């Protein structure tokens, strides 16, 4: 069974002459327990796919299948127990007036858990934050700590699939390493399926097995990480991206 299967997905915003097609006929699949990366420059529609899967907007057509179930335009709480998302900017994804404790306990109670206290301690431990962080507010946390809280929130309902929207692009490189290590550990421990979006090929290369390269709403190429590292690409665009991400000189 596949974790996620996308077939001929179209996503658009606006109507009539204002209509913008953000994703055009995208198809790919992520095996259960796999780790898949969507790569592209800004405006390529990569994040839009994640948000369509999560049901954050409903102007889409095509087929989205998650864990063997074909999704309609409505998502219920049961869906959100299985699929969760981590957002790009940890400075924007935590409510500014809610402490870590409030964020996690509300999430847990929404999913009907009873032993909330014990679970919060466990979650904080799992993401590498001690109990000292439990009652802090976002403004008392660093970017990396905030992202850990956001990951803890996503893990709270014990999902099987985690969608990661540029989870480290707002962080310093040393913190990025910590978060990437945490994400690989969590995937190994919890047998999670990852679908990750990033503009940074090195980050995607570190965490994913396969990648899809997107340009202007379309998937131009799907390739394995081994091929990517060996620069075995069919499309010139992929090669341009790869070379550009290796530094200034290498481009020649």
């Amino acid at each position, binding site marked *: 069974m596949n974790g996620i299967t996308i077939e001929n997905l179209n996503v658009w915003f606006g109507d009539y002459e204002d209509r913008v097609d953000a994703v055009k006929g995208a198809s790919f699949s992520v095996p259960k327990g796999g780790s898949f990366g969507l790569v592209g*420059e*800004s405006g390529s529609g990569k994040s839009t796919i994640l948000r369509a899967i999560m049901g954050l907007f409903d102007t889409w057509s095509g087929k989205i299948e998650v864990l063997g179930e074909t999704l309609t335009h409505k998502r219920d709480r049961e869906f959100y127990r299985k699929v969760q998302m981590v957002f790009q900017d940890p400075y924007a994804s935590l409510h500014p007036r809610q402490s870590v404790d409030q964020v996690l306990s509300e999430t847990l109670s929404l999913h009907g858990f009873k032993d909330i206290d014990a679970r919060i301690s466990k979650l904080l431990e799992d993401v590498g934050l001690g109990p000292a962080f439990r009652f802090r507010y976002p403004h008392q946390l660093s*970017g990396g700590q905030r992202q850990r809280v956001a990951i803890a929130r996503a893990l709270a309902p014990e999902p099987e699939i985690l969608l990661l929207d540029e989870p480290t692009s707002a962080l*310093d*490189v*040393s*913190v*990025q*390493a*910590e978060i*990437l*290590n945490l994400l*690989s550990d969590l995937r190994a421990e919890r047998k999670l399926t990852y679908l990750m979006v990033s*503009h940074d*090929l*090195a*980050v995607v*290369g*570190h965490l994913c097995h396969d990648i899809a390269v997107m340009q202007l709403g379309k998937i131009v190429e799907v390739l394995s*990480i081994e091929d*990517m*590292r060996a620069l075995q690409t069919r499309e010139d665009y992929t090669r*341009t*991206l*790869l070379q*550009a*991400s*290796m*530094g*200034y*000189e*290498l*481009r020649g």
Partner: protein
Amino acid sequence: MTKLLDVENLWVKFPTRNGIFDAVRGVSFTLGQERLGIVGESGSGKSMTGRAILRLIRKPGIVTADKMELDGQDLLAMSEKEMRKVRGQRISMIMQDPKFSLNPVMRVGQQIAEAYMLHTNTSKAQAKQKALEMLDAVAIRDPERVYNMFPHEVSGGMGQRIMIAMMLIPDPEIMIADEPTSALDVSVQIQVLEIMDKLVRERGMGLIFISHDLNLVSSFCDRVLIMYAGRVVETLQADKLHDAKHPYTRGLLNSLPRIDNPVERLEVLERDPAWRDEASISGAI
């Protein structure tokens, strides 16, 4: 090499409720006609250093230095009025997001032309001609069309190039670029860097390139200062970056995932509290 800028023992302090916070602690360096990179993580004081040179630190922040000279002229002793002449005319600054630096209700071409007329005594037609030339110089393909666009109609990369065009009008001696490409896509990044590179070489400008991206800086600049907690912990020739000695620089380099060198686990930087108290290394030559 001529010394364009000479900074010695620069401090930037902010009084807070819990005492004085030192954002920059005793930084010294010189800048010639070269590309000098300043690398550090958020909070390392790299942006503060750039702003302090232009005396753009807002109250209640305090800037002190033993020496801060532009071609032998003391920047700290200048009046605010003299300083305004330095900013823009002799030292230009490019920020991360061009959207905030352009006037949203004025066509970009007009903004460039206006800046030109402010600095020189020319007619409107001449200024427009010059603005078009400037747009052309920063590799904008269709200057006539871009001239008539509003800032919200241009993409991030183009906006950044327009900013650079505007900064170049008075022919400054020094350009300070604070994360000029972090908001841009990789392919656009390279274009913007190429333009800055060309300008430094052709006009003999000094460039201070502030960034968090070690790889980018080492491949683009001539020299690199690595900042940590308000101090310079190491200075390097950019091409020798991978021979860096300081554990912080090494840690930063190793914590980056690499396409050509996959690892199972990334190295995590262990911060040694002693780094904070080491003396700042001079970046003067």
